[in-house]
């Protein structure tokens, strides 16, 4: 079974929000869904619908502090609590690839599913009055008119630091599964048993470990030469024997 998902590397995310804007651009101008409406986009309190948001957290206390940029979108849970609560069946999880979607033609905008998502990943569209959320760009990842390397969610293509990986987390050999296994990928709020498909890769300390020995090699041939006892001119040389 396939389970498509994103793996987000918090170690390299710089919080530039390129994924946010490219997501908004693709999903607003795309053919599906009728866009993501905004209110006061250029006014005092701009607000609107987003599938993806980058938040920033400060961990620790000055001077020992780290800034964590944290992109957050629907995690396409393997056991999504938002799906069974939907009274209309508008929210569903696709069998073939595990993407959790909302059928905008069936949704009645009761917001119950947004209550049932512990991550706050769903947002109502104030104009269309239906629930919206990340679709993993379902309308482009299967688009055969695109070259294969472009058949990825918009956010993944936009990320300048390659912090976003996309693939099948059920395939043990995929890029995403390898990243999760090798770099300690984890899930958000594991305590609720939702089993999110999206994983996050933790921050790492990228420190090079340089020892004294590595800088001054004991067996450095140059150093060995330096340590040679200086040749005294009083002693007979080879030339003395030859001539």
């Amino acid at each position, binding site marked *: 079974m396939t389970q498509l998902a994103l793996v987000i590397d918090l170690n390299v995310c710089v919080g530039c929000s390129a994924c946010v804007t490219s997501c908004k651009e693709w999903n607003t101008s795309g053919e599906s869904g009728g866009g993501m409406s905004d209110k006061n986009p250029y006014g005092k309190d701009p607000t609107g619908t987003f599938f993806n948001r980058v938040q920033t957290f400060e961990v620790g206390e000055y001077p020992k502090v780290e800034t964590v940029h944290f992109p957050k979108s629907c995690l396409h849970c393997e056991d999504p609590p938002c799906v069974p609560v939907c009274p209309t069946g508008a929210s569903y999880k696709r069998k073939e690839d595990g993407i959790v979607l909302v059928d905008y033609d069936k949704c009645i905008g*009761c917001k119950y599913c947004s209550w049932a998502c512990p991550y706050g990943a769903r947002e109502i569209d104030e104009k269309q009055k239906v629930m919206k959320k990340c679709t993993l760009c379902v309308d482009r990842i299967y688009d055969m008119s695109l070259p294969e390397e472009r058949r990825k969610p918009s956010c993944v293509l936009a990320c300048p630091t390659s912090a976003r990986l996309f693939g099948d987390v059920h395939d043990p050999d995929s890029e995403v599964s390898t990243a999760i296994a090798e770099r300690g990928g984890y899930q958000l709020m594991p305590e609720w048993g939702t089993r999110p498909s999206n994983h996050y890769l933790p921050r790492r300390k990228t420190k090079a470990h340089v020892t004294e020995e590595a800088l001054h090699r004991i067996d450095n041939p140059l150093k060995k030469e330096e340590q040679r006892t200086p040749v005294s001119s009083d002693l007979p040389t080879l030339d003395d024997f030859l001539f």
Partner: protein
Amino acid sequence: MHPAFSVIFLTTLIGAGQGLFLALYTGQVYNTFGVVGDAAPSSLYIAGTFLVLVLMGLGLFASFFHLGRPERAWRAATKWKTSWLAREVIVLPAFSGMAFIWGALHYFNIDPVLVTTGTVDISLSLVVGLLAGLLALLLYLCTGMIYAAIKFIQEWASPLTVINYTLLGLASGFSLAAALAAWFGSSLTNAYAGWTLVFTLVGFGTRMFSLYRNGRIKRKSTACTAIGVRHPKIRQISQGAMGGSFNTREFFHHKSPQFVQTVKVFFLITVFIVPITLVVIGWSNHLFTLLAAAALVQYVGLLAERWFFFAQANHPQNLYYQAT
């Protein structure tokens, strides 16, 4: 959570409607089995059913304001196998319809005796009423479970939610019935007033217990599990929106703690203390006005109780919106 007035009115109105019907039916059972001396006038049942249907209708009307696309509301019955909301959407009209039939049987005076044991006649309306009564109880379960089924809203995820919805609905319904019976001068007033006191007092106990429980909740989710960073000091400095978002509007009440505290004290007084006092005085002196005032005050109090119920719930998604 943001307390939406549509849902506050929906739950309180239908809760009272169900309670009122159960009271009317209790009256019929009492009459049938001779618990209360003289038979209640059927005008009490007819007026009562009318009131039940008005309450249910108003509740349904209020609920439409909660929907983004009310014109598609009929779809909401499809997923009854998994969704308590869908179940409520089915049971609500089923109960209203059954209550309507019950009232109509009384109105047209069609009440053939189905079975008779000589002393007790089991009539058609008694059976219809039983079905409607069971649906009323089922509807309390559905309404309560809508909230209790969301396991990560820890204030709600408890059987107490269903118990409180049921008891408070019954209390408001029976207090309404007591006033109604007093208006019609029925001897059922005593029984209704008695039950009002029982439900209100027991409801007071369970509601206090849920307040006690909710004051001591140990949160399962923390900022650490939310972003997966193990550190005791995590502070949010940006939430990905400048002018707020759906997440900051839907999941916060945006009121001061003092305001919330005031609402709590207000509802404890108006749902429990004042109605109990009024019912005791009104009952012993057979004063319709006091019984009616008790029902009215209790209903207003329940609006505040429901507001508090929503405001108190702290959704784990708020961990991602700490800057609000």
